[in-house]
């Protein structure tokens, strides 16, 4: 099925969008967004800093390891929480609450006027519980490991549903909540779960995406370092270098992005502002290795997501890549991308981790959020820190260094891949009114 072509360069193909689900009750749209990233605490601030090529990575001191590089968020936790709630809860819960409240406000939804039993919370996480457990073991180490000093807060803080549960308590939501453990694919997984639950009629409003508090552990830093995968650079903002010949690993970050997701029919009925449509998605597994990715399965995942959206690869104007700046991971992903997007002259690629590091459970959700502006502002933010492209990471139309004007992007593919060979791809399209 041919896609439309444009005579001038710098514009993506404007496809005839063949929507798979014709019934508006089955079509899924995003109507609100709330986020915190190391370089932005609102979608507008985040987008502006991406377009202006402003990263924000810092040096932090972590237990036992001294100085490490990390993406740190500085959202105002007291905007939606009392001090006691911040003290008793977790950082991931706090990030989730901030993002959820911001997203609901952005969507123009007032929970007081909604049926709280018809809202659901689906949050992707890479891990949860490491921060609290490390803290408590350090705590009792100060008392000769006497476990009577172990906190009664430990269990509610460490159960894996904690970040989603804290959202329900803060917002008074009585519908379902849980987190989805999907490694670095978790942000996409949250969105996918929302789409599925809405189609099943389980809820009417889904708060979905991903969060991460991982910079507050030392174990994750130590483990990546042991794998030779922890980035180092004398300039923290230059440390995250996807596709660069001199990349040397991951910058770990915290953050969150939560979306308000609804069925199109409900969004139209209440006159909601529609940010985009979740047109297609897929998840699959490498079934190969605990750590090393498999480009064949990654390509399959992308092909399937695109097909389920009713599109062709050439219809995708922008791919928000996963690339974490590991040697093998970046190269494998590019091999998969070259296969999927062969002969796609109007398809562009970029990478948000070059700005914000790897936000773990929040990564996919934040990276997609940082690219949604392309639908309206006609700009594609670059991947930065790409001084010397690794030939293994060659991609046609890789937007590097500076923001590029590209009009007519109607579909974005967001990749996220994680350990144990978990792969996810989400295709979002600009909603055109039909």
């Amino acid at each position, binding site marked *: 099925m041919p896609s439309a072509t444009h005579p001038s360069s710098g514009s993506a193909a404007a496809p005839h969008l063949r929507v798979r689900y014709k019934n508006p009750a089955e079509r899924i749209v995003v109507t609100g967004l709330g986020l915190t990233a190391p370089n932005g605490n609102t979608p507008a601030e985040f987008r502006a800093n991406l377009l202006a090529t402003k990263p924000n990575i810092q040096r932090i001191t972590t237990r036992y390891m001294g100085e490490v590089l990390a993406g740190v968020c500085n959202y105002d936790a007291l905007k939606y929480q*009392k*001090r*006691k709630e911040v*003290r*008793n809860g977790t950082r991931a819960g706090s990030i989730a609450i901030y993002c959820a409240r911001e997203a609901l406000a952005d969507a123009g939804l007032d929970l007081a006027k909604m049926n709280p039993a018809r809202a659901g919370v689906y949050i992707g996480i890479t891990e949860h519980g490491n921060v609290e457990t490390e803290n408590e073991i350090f705590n009792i180490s100060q*008392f000769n490991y006497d476990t*009577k*000093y172990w*906190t*009664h*807060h430990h269990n509610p803080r460490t159960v894996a549903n904690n970040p989603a549960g804290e959202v329900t308590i803060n917002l008074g939501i009585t519908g379902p909540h849980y987190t989805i453990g999907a490694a670095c694919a978790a942000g996409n997984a949250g969105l996918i779960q929302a789409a599925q639950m809405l189609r099943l009629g389980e809820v009417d409003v889904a708060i979905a995406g991903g969060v991460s508090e991982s910079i507050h552990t030392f174990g994750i830093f130590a483990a990546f370092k042991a794998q030779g995968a922890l980035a180092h650079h004398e300039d923290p903002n230059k440390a995250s270098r996807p596709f660069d010949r001199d990349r040397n690993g991951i910058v770990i970050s915290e953050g969150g992005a939560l979306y308000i997701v609804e069925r199109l029919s409900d969004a139209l009925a209440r006159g909601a502002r529609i940010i985009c449509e979740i047109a297609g998605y897929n998840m699959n597994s490498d079934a190969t290795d605990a750590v090393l990715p498999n480009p064949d399965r990654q390509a399959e995942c992308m092909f399937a997501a695109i097909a389920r959206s009713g599109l062709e690869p050439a219809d995708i104007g922008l791919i928000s890549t996963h690339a974490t700046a590991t040697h093998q991971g970046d190269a494998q992903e590019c091999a998969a991308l070259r296969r999927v997007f062969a002969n796609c002259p109007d398809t562009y690629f970029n990478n948000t981790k070059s700005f914000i590091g790897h936000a773990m459970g929040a990564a996919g959700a934040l990276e997609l959020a940082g690219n949604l502006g392309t639908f309206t502002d006609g700009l594609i933010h670059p991947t930065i820190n790409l001084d010397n492209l690794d030939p293994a990471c060659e991609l046609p139309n890789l937007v590097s260094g500076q923001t590029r004007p590209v009009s007519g992007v109607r579909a974005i593919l967001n990749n996220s891949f994680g350990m144990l060979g978990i792969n996810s791809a989400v295709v979002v399209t600009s909603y055109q009114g039909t």
Partner: protein
Amino acid sequence: MAVAVTTPDEVKKIVLAIIADIAPDEDLSNVKPEVRLRDQLELDSMDFLDIVMELRKKYGIEVPEADYPKLASLDSCAEYLLPKFGK
């Protein structure tokens, strides 16, 4: 513990300082010592466990579960805890 705690008022100050950490949003300036703390402040059972834990960590004082009701008000805290500070 460097400083000896010898008066009920000193005990009450210590308990209020602990509560200030546990319930940082509360205004503690008008807490009535004879009234149950739960009737004046938003404190739940997890918060009382926090008080017990801080007494253990900071002052080496153990409060068995059967004695939790003795922490109900500042006055009862002072009466119950003062002898324990002496040990």
